């Protein structure tokens, strides 16, 4: 069947608001999380290669890039979780008022950073 649905206008045509920022970030982190989950799966599969080969991963996980990776991973997933919860409220018919969307959008953005810091520090990775 031929699909005649129009595609979305490019995001650059819109003025930026909290809601649009959270919306596009939700999509970007969604795709990012998909890619990150594939990497996690490859990591789990690589365990079959044995302890000796795992040393290569240890070098990566202890490096600066490894730390950046895990912080980025945590942030991206927390953002997705908070934004998804925001969507649940919308699905139930709550939170559509302009002021509320700004507040919940801000909570998603700030909350993702705050919770990432809390989780990262609480688990003592920085040490």
């Amino acid at each position, binding site marked *: 069947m*031929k*699909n005649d*649905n129009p*595609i*979305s206008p490019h995001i650059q045509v819109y003025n930026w608001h909290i809601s649009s920022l959270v919306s596009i970030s939700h*999509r970007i982190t*969604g*795709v990012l*999380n*998909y890619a990150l*989950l*594939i990497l*996690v*799966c490859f990591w*789990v*599969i690589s*365990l*079959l290669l044995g*302890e000796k080969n*795992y040393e290569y991963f*240890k070098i990566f*996980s*202890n490096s600066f890039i*490894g730390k950046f990776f*895990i912080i980025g*991973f*945590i942030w991206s*997933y*927390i953002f*997705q*979780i908070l934004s*998804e*919860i925001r*969507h*649940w409220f919308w*699905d139930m018919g709550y939170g559509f008022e302009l002021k509320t969307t700004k507040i919940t959008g801000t909570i998603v953005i700030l909350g993702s950073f705050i919770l990432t810091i809390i*989780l*990262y520090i609480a*688990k003592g*990775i920085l040490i």
Partner: protein
Amino acid sequence: MLQATKKWIFQKISSVIMVPFMIWFLLNIVEIFNAEYNEVVIFFTSQPSKILFSIFIVSTFFYSALSISEIFEDYISQENVKKYSNLGVFLSSLIIPLITIISIIYL
């Protein structure tokens, strides 16, 4: 029921299943990311993490495949490109979690 409505319902159900397991995995990955080989193997092979991790990857891949197909719908105009992109995401969302779960069983 419209195809789009069915897709939306599946997306919402998988999202409700996925989020608690996502939280569980986040709380654990910060610990096991830097752990020694034996600790990581014990984590993935012991119960209940073996089951929880399997549900986490299956629900997240399922949710992601549906969500990413929506993105393709919005931003890809060429039907052929859209079709093969969806097929790629669908197949990888099926094969990768399957191989991962089999790997955990054989660990």
